[in-house]
């Protein structure tokens, strides 16, 4: 049986794994992918010690750093359930059964004394007509992945935070023009990004606009939005990049306490309501979704795991 299973291999999970290796815990990482949303996040200029990098390179460095510490990373595995094998409150401490599916569909099951959930988030969808139908046919949730396909064409970005601003900046270098559709009257992101977007002559910002419809034939050719006086407008665009926030990957743990937006509730030690089960990174209710915060939180949770193992096992 493992001392610990870490689920997820991005900033929180990898940072925790480096500390776990140095504490000589018997543990492994089980994960769908390596790098998670970091890998798809484009240019990165706020990770201390590295002035400029990008999501792919940072995710690669994460993997290499874990491997240098002989961390076992089992990827292409989707955890579907975590269950305590013994009732809580007993003298011996919990044991958890972690189960799920491998990429081929076969099932796996592992046991551990503790679990650290660092499963991150996935992009929120607009849930409007045409969105599903035109996914990968003009509608994308990853500008870094799919943006380069829209060279010289008109595109739209939907959203009002850092991800939307970064998307618009990247697309302005590729597309012929970029409409940014923001449902609010202001942007929520960093001032440095807002300035870059506002000053870019290829970008047109449309405030207080609700995206209502995505239209096309085989591929997207237009987007309809409603302005603040309820007037409908049509933009002829070939690409629509949706960056309207994230949804926590938290729906697979029966009995775990979530907040109103489905984030796992943790305290400052990374403890959840289930003794022995910890969480860290963007999947939790800790404010500010940043790589550096997720990394630090992963380490705090790991050190709490060590304390817990010393006390309970």
């Amino acid at each position, binding site marked *: 049986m493992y001392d610990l299973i870490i689920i997820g291999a991005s900033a929180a999970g990898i940072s925790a794994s480096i500390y776990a290796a140095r504490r000589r815990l018997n543990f492994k990482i089980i994960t769908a992918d390596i*790098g998670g949303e970091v890998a798809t996040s484009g240019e990165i200029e706020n990770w201390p010690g590295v002035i400029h990098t990008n999501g792919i390179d940072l995710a690669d460095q994460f993997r290499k750093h874990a491997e240098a510490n002989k961390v076992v990373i089992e990827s*292409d595995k989707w955890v579907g359930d975590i269950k305590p094998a013994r009732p809580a409150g007993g003298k011996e401490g919990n044991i958890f059964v972690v189960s799920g599916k491998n990429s081929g569909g076969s099932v796996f099951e592992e046991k551990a004394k503790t679990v650290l959930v660092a499963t991150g988030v996935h992009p929120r969808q607009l849930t409007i007509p045409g969105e599903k139908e035109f996914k990968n046919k003009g509608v994308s949730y990853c500008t870094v992945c799919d943006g380069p*396909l829209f060279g010289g064409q008109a595109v739209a970005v939907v959203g009002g935070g850092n991800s939307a601003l970064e998307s618009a900046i990247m697309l302005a270098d*590729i597309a012929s023009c970029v409409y940014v559709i923001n449902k609010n009257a202001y942007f929520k992101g960093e001032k440095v990004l807002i300035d870059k977007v506002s000053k870019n002559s290829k970008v047109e910002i449309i405030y207080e606009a609700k995206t209502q419809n995505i239209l096309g034939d085989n591929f997207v050719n237009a987007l309809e939005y409603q302005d603040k006086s309820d007037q409908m407008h049509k933009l002829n665009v070939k*690409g629509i990049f949706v960056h309207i926030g994230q949804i926590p990957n938290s729906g697979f743990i029966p009995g775990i306490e979530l907040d109103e937006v489905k984030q796992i509730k943790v305290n400052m030690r990374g403890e959840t309501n289930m003794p022995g089960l910890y969480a860290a990174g963007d999947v939790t209710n800790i404010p500010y979704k940043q790589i550096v915060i997720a990394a630090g939180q992963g380490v705090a949770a790991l050190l709490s795991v060590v304390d817990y193992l010393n006390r309970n096992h």
Partner: protein
Amino acid sequence: MIVKIYTTPTCAYCHAEKEFFKENNIAFQERDVFADAAARQEMIDKTGQLGVPVTDIDGKIVVGFDKSKIKELLGLK
């Protein structure tokens, strides 16, 4: 066996798939759909969609880095 992968330079899954090919000593041709308009059109003709990566293994098409499907087509365990 001819393996082609349609990529963009910034796509993390494309990168992961190329790493996977290298680890398994699979020779592949890369078609950058950002730099090469003909490659872009070829990918659209083959798949009717705009997501990358797209993999063509002897004419069999996989959209996205679906490792188990790619392994199966390559005859890897």
